[in-house]
């Protein structure tokens, strides 16, 4: 099959824009040189990054064609474009939060690596081919390892990066091995070809091993139990803007590809888990991982005294909720999961933005640094309250509708016999547990008074504006979920789901 290079260029233009931006950022930073004030260099680097992302969004929004090359290696349809725009938007948020961070003098490299990680995520969202998927995942992962360890002077960051890298390397090996087993069983590397082969071949022990290994690899990316051990250390050790990138952008990409694999590649080996009746396959694995993630994530979060670690364990728990809806295994699951991943990412981005500002104001992210925040910085505390309550699933915030929808989808599995009621019940019970630590965190912020002498709170500027926009977004999506659901549904329909 002859490849049309013009077509290829048009399909990858968004990624190309981001790569070029990364190179330009490096070049400009080099030109400015070490003699230029750090603030100016940061402004240039982040500003250029934002411009690049906005241009890419504009291209995806108006000009990008639909199509696919080389049997699904690169796919561009309404859905992938929508997800890519979300990823770009989240990266813009991360860049804006990084605008005044002081963790490194290598700002050009920082922004460039961030953008390269973004390219990996864009490719993840835009492929239906397991080879490209693996390469894109590695590109994104390697960038994230670097970002976590970017503050060389912080031993905690270095430790976290090493841990993340070793775990990630292992997970990558599992994923690759699993994919090769699936290739061995089906002889195909495209999602749809795999699905076609599986529908006649059925489930073999070898394939089952392959599925488990794929789940190990992707479970690592979404920080599901038992592949979550890197998350608390990485979240805590990473520079906070980088942590927000891990918590927001990379989660959206990983959940999306997991959902797409479930719906597009593995429907023939889905299996089921209705009460005591289990047919082995992909979704019982998801259900199992979901159940342990919800339990372990929420219980472990109870004992955390550092807000970043708490958010990490809360992310583990949320991975459990998302996987619960994914057990449905059809378009509805893809829909609910994508919606939830997006609302969750906005919330997490905002929450890390607040953490970043509090670190700037008080020098840390432990509980004592948040104590009495509502009296020191009422606006910031209000935003933080909105994010935390949204994570807890309180109306009228985005997290409420998102979680409601996940539960609804999971509950609809099995038709009239509510086969997944056990998982829904577990989810509801662990949600109650989560209220305890979310409320206790809010107690620290709102109920307890500030200690010691009060320094004047630093002005937030762009960072605070970003956080405020995220907070408004969380409220708006919560009040009118149709604003996101509608376009997402149109994209799904246009993409043929």
């Amino acid at each position, binding site marked *: 099959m002859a490849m049309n290079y013009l077509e290829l260029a048009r399909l990858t233009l968004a990624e190309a824009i981001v790569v070029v931006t990364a190179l330009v950022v490096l070049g400009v930073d080099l030109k400015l040189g070490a003699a230029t004030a750090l603030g100016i260099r940061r402004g240039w680097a982040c500003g250029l990054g934002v411009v690049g992302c906005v241009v890419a969004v504009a291209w995806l929004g108006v000009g990008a064609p639909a199509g696919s090359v080389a049997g699904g290696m690169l796919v561009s349809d309404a859905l992938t474009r929508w997800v890519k725009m979300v990823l770009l938007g989240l990266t813009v948020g991360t860049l804006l939060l990084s605008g005044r961070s002081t963790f490194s003098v290598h700002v050009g490299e920082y922004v460039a690596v961030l953008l390269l990680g973004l390219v990996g995520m864009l490719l993840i969202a835009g492929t239906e081919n397991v080879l490209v998927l693996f390469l894109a995942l590695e590109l994104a992962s390697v960038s994230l390892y670097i970002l976590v360890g970017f503050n060389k002077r912080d031993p905690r960051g270095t430790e976290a990066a090493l841990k993340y890298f070793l775990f990630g390397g292992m997970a990558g090996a599992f994923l690759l091995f699993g994919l090769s087993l699936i290739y061995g069983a089906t002889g195909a590397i495209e999602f749809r070809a795999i699905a076609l082969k599986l529908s006649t071949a059925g489930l073999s022990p070898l394939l089952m091993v392959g599925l488990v290994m794929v789940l190990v690899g992707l479970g690592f990316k979404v920080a599901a139990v038992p592949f979550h051990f890197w998350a608390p250390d990485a979240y805590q050790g990473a520079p906070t803007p980088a942590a927000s990138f891990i918590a927001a952008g990379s989660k959206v990409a990983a959940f999306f590809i997991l959902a797409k694999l479930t719906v597009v590649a593995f429907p023939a080996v889905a299996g089921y888990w209705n009460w005591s009746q289990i047919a082995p396959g992909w979704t019982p694995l998801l259900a199992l991982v979901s159940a342990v993630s919800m339990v372990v994530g929420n219980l472990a979060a109870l004992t955390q005294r550092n807000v970043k670690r708490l958010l990490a364990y809360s992310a583990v728990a949320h991975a459990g909720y998302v996987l619960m809806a994914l057990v449905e295994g059809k378009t509805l699951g893809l829909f609910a999961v994508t919606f939830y991943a997006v609302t969750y990412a906005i919330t997490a981005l905002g929450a890390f933005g607040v953490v970043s500002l509090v670190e700037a104001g008080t020098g840390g992210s432990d509980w004592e640094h948040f104590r009495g925040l509502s009296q020191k910085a009422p606006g910031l505390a209000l935003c933080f309250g909105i994010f935390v309550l949204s994570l807890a699933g*309180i109306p009228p915030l985005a997290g409420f509708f998102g979680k409601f929808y996940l539960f609804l989808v999971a509950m609809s599995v099995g038709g009239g016999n509510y086969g997944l*009621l056990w998982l829904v019940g577990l989810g509801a*019970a662990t949600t109650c547990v989560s209220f305890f630590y979310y409320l206790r965190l809010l*107690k620290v912020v709102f109920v307890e008074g500030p200690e010691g002498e009060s320094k004047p709170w630093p002005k937030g500027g762009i960072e605070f504006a970003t956080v405020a926009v995220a907070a408004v977004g969380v409220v708006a999506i919560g009040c009118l*979920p*149709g604003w996101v659901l509608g376009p997402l549904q149109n994209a799904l329909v246009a993409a043929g789901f």
Partner: protein
Amino acid sequence: MALTWTIWISMLGAVGVYLAGPGNPARCRWIALMASVAGCVAALVGASQVGVNSELVTLVRVPWVKILGIEFHLAADGVSVVLVLLTGVAAVAGILFSWNVSLRANEFFALYLLLITGVYGVFLSFDLFQFFAFYELAIVPKYFLIAIWGSTRREYGAMKLALYSFIGSALVLVGVLAVYLSSGTSSFDLVRLADSGVPAAVQTWAFPLVFVGFAILAGMWPFHTWAPTGHVAAPTAASMLLAGVVMKLGAYGALRVGMMVMPQGAMLWAPAVATLATVGIVSAALVALVQQDFKFVIGYSSVSHMGFVLLGLAAANPRGVSGAVLQMFSHGVIAGLLFGVVGRMVYDRTHTRELTLLEGLGLARALPFAAVTFTLASVASMGLPGFSGFVAEMQVLTGAWQAYPIAALAAGVGVVLAVAFTLRVLQKAFLGPATTVTPEDATPITTPEKLGAFLLLGTSLWVGLYPKLLLDWIDGGLGSPAFATMRKVLGWP
């Protein structure tokens, strides 16, 4: 329709108060008072617009989340109108009784009005999703009101209350999803769900989830333990609202979602509910009899009186259910007043609620107004004729007598016990010898407190002397199309 405005006014009031800033408590109070009075007026005007009839009046109905068939659907029948009126009255009284709040006043009144917003929203919601959203919205402000402005073990009490509420709503959530999915309507419209006939097999297990989930908030034994600790920890206004309207949210949800949508499940589980309600009435009254903390007595008395609401619902006959709704109104007014006297008039002055210490103060001489108010409120609470409690509990008992005579007899014992613990606390708290009174203990009762007391006492007296008005509304409401399926299944005339 004016009823819709109750929600918007409270919401705008919350925002307005918050923006007034922490520096000026007086301005915050006045904004909050104006917002709550406006809400109360809107409730009254709206009630007269709806009128006494057996119709379901749609106020607002617009699509909200189309793919799931969720609508923003506000409507009212007689039952909702009665409870909206209660909310209006209780909200005004609560603000009058918290006129002395000055710590972070803007946040206090903003959370207060946010809570009221959620409560109005629940009483007017006829879309199940929206109902649930408003219901959860009302829980969060309670936590902060208690944890920040509360007294004894406030953080423990606030967390306990919040967790119990959330556990309840988690149960409700599972039930709600089951109802939605099994009805086959692709709609969260409460009336349509009720008419569609949720399959009996689903009702069997979904009804107890929904009913218990809501009844936790109504203080159903044995899930009531959050109520006394929460009340004791709460600041005056919050405990007034808790007892006055929030516990009614639970009872209302149990009726509106539990019984109305799943009447077959209600029939099946009614004996169990009646048993739990009766045990609650008697045991909470016995516990109240031995409490040493003034507020704990009132807290347990609340649980006991709310047992009558649940008993009326369990009776599942017209008299029992309408009595239950009237008891919601009546207890909301009376319990609000009792907590107002204990928290604002007594505790804020004497800084103690220990009955042994209060006994030495002889507050009847130092604070005659408080003593008279509490005596009248006690009389109303004991269910003596002339006040609303009598009519309501009489209705419930006659209804229960038809369905479960033994439960009715046991609940009758509960009434006697209520007299005992109320008289005991009245005697200990107010009628002891005055030996250790300080001038601070005898600070004169302020005008806002008097106004609040008059408002609540007047309401209770008015309903007690002329119960027909509210009863007509309630009976009209129970005769509305919304309850058609329930009436048919329960075999009402």
